[in-house]
C-alpha cells in the first residue's frame, strides 16, 4: 500500500486554509482565525508525528514523494525529509502555530493578515522539505512578498518607519538572493555535462559539484555564501535584521527570526557545503571569522539598545554568528551544533518575540526605561520572557545550552584560541538578556500598568508550545541530537571522502 503523501499535506494545509479564507466574508473574524489555527495545527500535528516515526537508525531521506515536473530542466517535485530538515520542519510548524495565536488580538484587516500568514508558513515549510533545487528556489523567494505586505500594513514605526523596515528587509534579501540565483544557475549549467542530463535534485547536484575544479567550487561557493549569508544575517550583511524585526508585526518577527533566517544556514549546509566541499574548505576560515565577528559585534550592539525588539534583533544576529562559526569548522560536531543551535534559537527567539509582542500590545511601548515591574501584574508573561532569556544565554537545562556547548567544542578543535572570543560573547549575552529582563519585569511595579491583565486563553499558546520545547530540549537533548546526527553524519562522511580525493589531486 502506498503511504499517505504526508509532506504534501503538511505543506498545503495552511495554504488551502488561506484559499478558503479568501471566500469568507471579512467581517467573520472568528471563523477566519480558527481556520488559520486549524491549518497550522494539522501541519504541526503531522510533522510531530513524522518526527516521532522517522527512523533515525536508517537515516537518509524518508517519506519521499517524487514526481517529474519540468523535463527539460530535470526538475522533479521532490519532497523528503532527513535528520536536518525534519527538525526545521517541526520548528516551522511550532512557530507558525504559535504565531497564529500571537496574532489573536489583531485590530484590523484580519482576513488579509491570516491569509498572508498561512501562505508565509507554507512557503517556509517548502524550503525545508524540497530536495530539488528548483522547487527550493520557488519557495525561497515566495515568502518575501507576504512579509513585505504584512510589515507595511501591520508593522510599527519607532526608530525607523515600517515602510523603511519593510523595504530594507525585502531588498536586502532579494539582492542577496540574486547572487545565490547566479550561483545556483551556474552550478546547474555546469552540472549538465558532468551528469549527462539535467537534474536538479540536491543529490545529483552534489555529485556533480564534487567533481568540479577547485576554482569553480570556490567562486560558486562565494556566490552562495553571499546569498545564504545575507539571509542568515551573517556579519556584515546583517543590518536588515534588527530594523526589519523592529518594524514587523509580532507574528512576522517570530517567523522571520525563528525560522526564515535559518533557511540561510540550512541552505549553506545542505546545498553549498555538500555540493562544493572544496569551496567550503577554502571559505571555512572566513565564515568562522565572520561568525565570530558577528557574535562579538552584535552582542555589544545589543548591550546598547533600549528598545526590546532591537535587543532580540541583535541577539539573533549574535546567535547566528555561532551558527556561522559552527559551519566554518566543517566537521561533524560543528555541523551538528549548527543545526541544533538553529533549532534552539528558533524556539527561543519566537518565544521572545511573542512575549515582547504582548508587552507592546498591552503597554503600547517597547522602550525599556518606560517599563518596569511587569512581573507583578503579569506573572505568566514574565515566565515566558525569562524562559526565553535564560535559554538565550545558554543556561543548562534549557534548550540553548547543549548546542552552544557543542559548537564551542568544535570551534576549539578547529580554531583553538580564536573560539574564545565567541565564548566571551556568552557573557555579554547574559548581561543584556538579564538586564532587559530585570528592567522590564522586575523592580517596583508601575501604577500605570496596574490594570493590565496577564496573558490568558489564546495568548498562552506560544508559551505552552514553545516553552515546553525549550525545557524538553534542555532535559532530553538526545531527542534533538539523535535526529540531527542521523542526517549530518552520513553526509559528512561523504564530504570527508570527497575532500580526501580532492586533496590527492
Amino acid at each position: 500500500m502506498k503511504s499517505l503523501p504526508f509532506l504534501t499535506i503538511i505543506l498545503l494545509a495552511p495554504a488551502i486554509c488561506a484559499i478558503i479564507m479568501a471566500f469568507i466574508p471579512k467581517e467573520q473574524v472568528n471563523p477566519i482565525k480558527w481556520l488559520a489555527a486549524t491549518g497550522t495545527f494539522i501541519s504541526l500535528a503531522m510533522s510531530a508525528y513524522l518526527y516521532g516515526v522517522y527512523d533515525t537508525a536508517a537515516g537518509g531521506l524518508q517519506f519521499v514523494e517524487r514526481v517529474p515536473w519540468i523535463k527539460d530542466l530535470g526538475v522533479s517535485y521532490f519532497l523528503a525529509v532527513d535528520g536536518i530538515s525534519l527538525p526545521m520542519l517541526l520548528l516551522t510548524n511550532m512557530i507558525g502555530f504559535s504565531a497564529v495565536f500571537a496574532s489573536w488580538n489583531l485590530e484590523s484587516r484580519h482576513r488579509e493578515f491570516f491569509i498572508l500568514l498561512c501562505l508565509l508558513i507554507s512557503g517556509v515549510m517548502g524550503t525545508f522539505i524540497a530536495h530539488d533545487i528548483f522547487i527550493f528556489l520557488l519557495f525561497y523567494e515566495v515568502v518575501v512578498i507576504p512579509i513585505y505586505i504584512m510589515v507595511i500594513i501591520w508593522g510599527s514605526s519607532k526608530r525607523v518607519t515600517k515602510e523603511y523596515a519593510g523595504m530594507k528587509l525585502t531588498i536586502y534579501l532579494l539582492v542577496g538572493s540574486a547572487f545565490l540565483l547566479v550561483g545556483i544557475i551556474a552550478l546547474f549549467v555546469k552540472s549538465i555535462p558532468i551528469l549527462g542530463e539535467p537534474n536538479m535534485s540536491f543529490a545529483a547536484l552534489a555529485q556533480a559539484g564534487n567533481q568540479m575544479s577547485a576554482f569553480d567550487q570556490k567562486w560558486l561557493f562565494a556566490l552562495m555564501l553571499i546569498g545564504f549569508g545575507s539571509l542568515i544575517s551573517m556579519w556584515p550583511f546583517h543590518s536588515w535584521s534588527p530594523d526589519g524585526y523592529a518594524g514587523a508585526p509580532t507574528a512576522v518577527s517570530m517567523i522571520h527570526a525563528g525560522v526564515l533566517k535559518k533557511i540561510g544556514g540550512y541552505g549553506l549546509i545542505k546545498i553549498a557545503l555538500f555540493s562544493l566541499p572544496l569551496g567550503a574548505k577554502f571559505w571555512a576560515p572566513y565564515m568562522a571569522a565572520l561568525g565570530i565577528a558577528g557574535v562579538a559585534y552584535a552582542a555589544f550592539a545589543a548591550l546598547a539598545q533600549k528598545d526590546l525588539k532591537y535587543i532580540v534583533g541583535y541577539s539573533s544576529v549574535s546567535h547566528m554568528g555561532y551558527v556561522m562559526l559552527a559551519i566554518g569548522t566543517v566537521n561533524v560536531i560543528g555541523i551538528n551544533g549548527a543545526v541544533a543551535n538553529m533549532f534552539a534559537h528558533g524556539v527561543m527567539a519566537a518565544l521572545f518575540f511573542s512575549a515582547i509582542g504582548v508587552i507592546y500590545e498591552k503597554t503600547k511601548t517597547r522602550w525599556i526605561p518606560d517599563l518596569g515591574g511587569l512581573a507583578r501584574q503579569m506573572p505568566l508573561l514574565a515566565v515566558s520572557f525569562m524562559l526565553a532569556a535564560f535559554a538565550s544565554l545558554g543556561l543548562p537545562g534549557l534548550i540553548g545550552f547543549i548546542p552552544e556547548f557543542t559548537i564551542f567544542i568544535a570551534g576549539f578543535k578547529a580554531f583553538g584560541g580564536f573560539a574564545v572570543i565567541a565564548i566571551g560573547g556568552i557573557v555579554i549575552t547574559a548581561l543584556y538578556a538579564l538586564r532587559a529582563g530585570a528592567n522590564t519585569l522586575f523592580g517596583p511595579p508601575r501604577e500605570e500598568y496596574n490594570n493590565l491583565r496577564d496573558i490568558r486563553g489564546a495568548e498562552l499558546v506560544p508559551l505552552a508550545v514553545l516553552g515546553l520545547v525549550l525545557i524538553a530540549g534542555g532535559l532530553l537533548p538526545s531527542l534533538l541530537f539523535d535526529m540531527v546526527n542521523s542526517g549530518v553524519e552520513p553526509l559528512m562522511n561523504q564530504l570527508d571522502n570527497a575532500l580526501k580525493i580532492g586533496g590527492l589531486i
Partner: protein
Amino acid sequence: MQMDFSVIIPEIAMVSLGVLVLILGLILPKKSLPRLGWFTSFSLIGILALVVLNWNNVGTVSGGLYLIDQFSQFFKVIFLTAAILVVFGSMAYVDKHLGGQAEYYSILVFSTLGMMVMASANDFITMYLGLELMTISFIVLVCFRRNDSESLEAGMKYVLLAGISSAVLLYGLSLIYGIAGTVLVVEVGMILAVQQSLPLLLVGVVMLVAGLGFKIAAVPFHMWAPDVYQGAPTPITSFLAVGSKMASFAILIRIFVLGMFGVSLSWGILMAILAGVTIIIGNLVAIPQTNIKRLMAYSGIAQAGYILVGMVTASQAGVKAIMFYGFIYIFAVVGVFTAISYYYNLTGSDEIKDYAGLSQRSPLMAATMVVSMLTMAGIPPFAGFVGKFYLFMTVVENYLWLAIIGLIMSMVSVYYYLMVVLVMYRDRPQDSSPIVVSLPVRMTLIFTMLVSVVLGVYPGPLSEIINKAALSFFMH
C-alpha cells in the same frame, strides 16, 4: 509551382475580419456598435483556434518568401492571444472614451496581421512589409484619442521615430543585401557563414541593431517609449508593449540567429552589452516615476533587456527562452494594463498616488497587478521566474557578468513595483466604495493571473511545446 494556400488561412481570415468589422461599422446602427468588441474578440478566438488546430500544418508560400513553421505559429499564438485580451480589456475604455469602435477594432486586427506577417516572413522585403503594416496601424491607434493633445503628441512622436527607425532598418537590410546578393534569410545565412568579416557587414549589423532597437525600445533607442506609452490609449499601450515588441523580436531572431549565425561572435557581445545597459537604465529610471503608465514604460524597457539576453548566445536554448518569456510576458503586461485602464475609466487618473487603497476597493484588481508585476520582476512562484531562469541559463557560462547584472537589477525592480503595492495595500482609500469590475475585464484579470501562477508552478508542458517550436526554427 503549386501554392499551398491552406497554410495561410489564418492570415486570410484576419484580412477578412478586418474588412468585415469596418463594413459592419458602416451598416450597423450606432447604438449596437459596442457589440463589435465582442464580435472581434470571438472572431479572434476562432482564428487563434485555427492556428492551434493547424499547429503541425507547416509549409511555405511564394517560393519560400513566406514561411509557416512552429516557430512562427507560436509567435502567432502570442500575438492573437494578446490581441484577444486587449480587445476584452478595451471594450469599456473604447465605449466610454474613444468611440469609433469599427475603425478601432479593424485597425487593431490589421496591426495583429502585420505582426503575424513579421513572424512568418522569411525574406527582408516581407519582413519590412509586415513591420510597416504593424507600425502604420499603431500610429493611428496611438493617436486615437483625437481630442486629447497628449495622445496627438504621442502619435506625432511615434510617427517620427518609427519613420526614422524604419529607414535605418531598411538601410541596414539593403547593406546586407549588398553583401549577400539575396533577400532570403536562410541564403543570407549560408553566404555570410563563409564570408570574411567585412566593414560593410559591420555597418549593416549596427544599422539593423539600431533599427530594431527602436522597435523593441532598447537603450539607447528607448526615448520615445515613455511619452508614447503615456499618451496612447491605455489598451493600445499594452498592445504596443507586448505585440510590437515581440513581433520585432521575431524578426530580430530570424535575421540574427538564422541569417547571421556565422558571424554571431561579432554581434553576440554587442547584444550582451545592449541587454546589460537596457536592463540597468530601464530599471533605474523606473524608480522615480509617479505615473503608472510611465513606470510600466520603463519597466517595459527593462523587460526588452531581459529578452535580449536570449539573443546573446544565438542558440536554440536562447530562442526557446525568448519564446517562453515572451509568452508569459503578454499575460503580465495585459493584466497590469487592463487594471490600469479600468481604473482610469473610473477615476480619470493614472497617478500612482491615486491607487491608494485599491486592495480594499477591489481585491481582484490589486491582486492582479501584484501578480503581474511580480511576474515581470521574476519572483517565484510566478511564471517570470521560470522565464528568467531559462534566459540567464544561456549566458551564465560565457557572460557571467550579464547574469549577475540582470538578476541583481531584477531584484532592484522589485523596489518600484513594491512602491505601487505599498500604495495599493497600506493606504486607506479616499472613496471606499467597492469597485464593481465588469465581466470582460474580470475575465481578463482572472485569466492573466491564473496563467502567471499556473505557468510559474507547472511550466513543463509549455516548455516542451516551445522546445519543439524552437527546434523547428533551426530546421531549414
